[in-house]
């Protein structure tokens, strides 16, 4: 296979293999995970190759599906921005899939393993497709593929999970339909659905009222899908009640790909001049994001359920990213793009560690974390790495992206944004301190025993290596992204920012 077909294969391979997984899963469940890992490894290879191609060519790779040229055919377009996101999705989903092996065996009956892995691959297919496509209607279809697999995979959980999935579905469908309506308005005006084509055709129409309505519909749709405050209400319930392996898959990826779609519309489909000057969308988004950050951080403090706490953290992180975009300058946007990628790994790190802790302790309540450092030192260390990164402690990656976000707000002289960023980080620090205090400094363990003095010896967590290694890799990725953030910005992110800024 020649490398020029990689942009298509990164979507086609997981899509086709998801059906293979389903069929194989009916007869031999043990083969499911190897096929999934093979598919994700292949996707990682494609993604890395695409990124390398983009870097060496220094421009957009355009792939025409079925050799139909745009605007008639569907085009896959990869530039620096989505090449970076593709690689991040590939790494995170691979690590999460390996980590899920023993967790999912505890959470779901064996008969559900085949469907679980099928939906996992479909989810990844949708996310890759949303990231790579250059066609707004194709994006809708792939968005729905990702959403449907999310609804179904969340509903696999115990207790209230199907109900939470149904509520998510109502919300998600309103979002997707608003998006569909929005692109319908753009289509009326231009007769085109191709992003690059739309960008040129829309410029003379920026004064049109139909365009504004369409743009507003698209923004609402994307905001719902990326769990932007105040339309985030579907997220805490559904991600908390979903099986841990599922929330570890969805939490890092889905909302961040939504942010990517937002960036695409603000700066590729529409000219930055439109999004910044002609329509005050960035000011509106930024103002709401400030409230969202404070609201979500305070709500996170109020939770006693570890997963629900992390879910509110996602909403706050989305707020940070949007604040960075709302700064509308190079520094803020650098921070926003970097934070999107970093947040995938931070949330992957936190949710996989939380999944292992919950599977071991059996309760989501933070009160039950007493003495965790004695039984699960490595898992807890991974959790701490994620927490430090979210709070923004160097050398973890969260520090660097937040640094650029802060610089962006200062440069834009937006002191309210700056205040929200700093207050949010402070609240996150308090939040994690509460968890870590319970797990490190409480002397009694979960049964209320105090350990006799002098009997402490170092033990490594009694959990399978397939859980331990992906988690540790996540933590190392946080360090890696932090230490190499300079070259990531210089070589990739700098080119992903619109030149006019």
């Amino acid at each position, binding site marked *: 296979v020649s490398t020029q077909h990689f942009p298509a294969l990164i979507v086609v391979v997981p899509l086709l293999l998801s059906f293979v997984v389903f069929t194989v899963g009916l007869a031999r469940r043990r083969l499911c995970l190897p096929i999934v890992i093979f598919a994700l490894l292949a996707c990682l290879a494609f993604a890395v190759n695409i990124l390398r191609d983009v870097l060496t060519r220094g421009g957009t790779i355009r792939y025409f599906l079925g050799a139909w040229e745009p605007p008639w055919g569907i085009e896959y377009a990869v530039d620096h921005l989505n090449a970076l996101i593709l690689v991040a999705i590939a790494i995170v989903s691979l690590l999460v899939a390996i980590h899920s092996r023993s967790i999912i065996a505890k959470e779901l009956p064996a008969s559900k393993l085949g469907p679980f892995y099928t939906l996992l691959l479909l989810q990844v297919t949708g996310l890759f497709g949303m990231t790579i496509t250059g066609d707004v*209607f194709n994006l809708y*279809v792939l968005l729905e593929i990702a959403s449907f697999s999310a609804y179904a995979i969340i*509903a696999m959980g115990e207790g209230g999970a*199907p109900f939470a999935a149904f509520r998510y*579905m109502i919300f998600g*469908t*309103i979002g997707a*339909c608003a998006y569909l309506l929005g692109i*319908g308005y753009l289509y*009326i005006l231009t007769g085109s659905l191709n992003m690059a084509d739309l960008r040129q055709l829309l410029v003379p129409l920026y004064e049109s009222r139909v365009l504004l309505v369409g743009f507003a519909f698209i923004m609402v749709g994307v905001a719902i899908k990326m769990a932007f405050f105040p339309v985030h209400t579907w997220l805490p319930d559904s991600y908390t009640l979903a099986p841990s392996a599922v929330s570890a898959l969805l939490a890092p990826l889905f909302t961040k790909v939504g942010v990517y779609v937002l960036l695409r519309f603000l700066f590729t489909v529409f000219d930055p001049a439109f999004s910044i000057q002609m329509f005050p969308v960035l000011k509106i988004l930024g103002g709401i994001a400030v409230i969202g950050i404070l609201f979500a951080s305070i709500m996170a403090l109020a939770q006693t359920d570890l997963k629900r706490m992390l879910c509110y953290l996602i909403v706050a992180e989305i707020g940070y990213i949007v604040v960075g975009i709302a700064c509308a300058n190079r520094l803020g946007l650098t921070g926003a793009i970097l934070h999107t990628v970093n947040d995938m790994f931070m949330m992957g790190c936190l949710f996989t560690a939380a999944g292992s802790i919950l599977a071991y302790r059996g309760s989501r309540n933070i009160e039950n974390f007493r003495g965790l450092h004695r039984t699960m030192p490595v898992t807890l260390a991974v959790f701490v790495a994620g927490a430090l990164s979210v709070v923004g402690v160097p050398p973890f990656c969260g520090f660097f992206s937040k640094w650029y976000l802060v610089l962006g707000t200062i440069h834009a002289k937006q002191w309210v944004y700056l205040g929200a960023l700093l207050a949010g980080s402070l609240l996150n620090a308090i939040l994690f301190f509460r968890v870590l205090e319970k797990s490190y400094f409480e002397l009694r363990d979960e049964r209320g025993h105090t350990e006799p003095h002098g009997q402490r010896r170092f033990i490594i967590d009694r959990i399978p290596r397939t859980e331990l290694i992906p988690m540790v890799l996540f933590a190392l990725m946080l360090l890696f992204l932090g230490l190499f953030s300079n070259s990531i910005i210089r070589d990739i992110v700098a080119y992903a920012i619109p030149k006019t800024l």
Partner: protein
Amino acid sequence: MTEFIIGKFNYWIYILLIIIGLYGMMAKNNLMKKLIGMTIFQWAIILFYISIGAKRGGTIPIIMTTNPNDVVRAADYVNPLPHVLMLTAIVVGVATTGIALTLLIIIYQRYGTLEEDRIIRALRK
């Protein structure tokens, strides 16, 4: 004014259907009625797309003449693209309904009811 209302009646119907659908999703307590609202909402958007492709006096988009020298005027044909897009959207809609009904069956098996307030009460316990 009457021309504005009657001449664009298909768009008025689509707006009305969207409002009915949103009302069903937001205000109804029964999950099945919420699902019906959701379906009406989706179908309203399909109607909108069909409307923008249609043309008064337009015919099906198959070129009628066999003579290659004849001029083909795009204005004589309806625009097939929105209709083709809606084939995909209908498939999406059917899939949504399928998943939603599956979820409702599971919810009904767990709680014995589809009334939202009763399910929430059962979950709080």
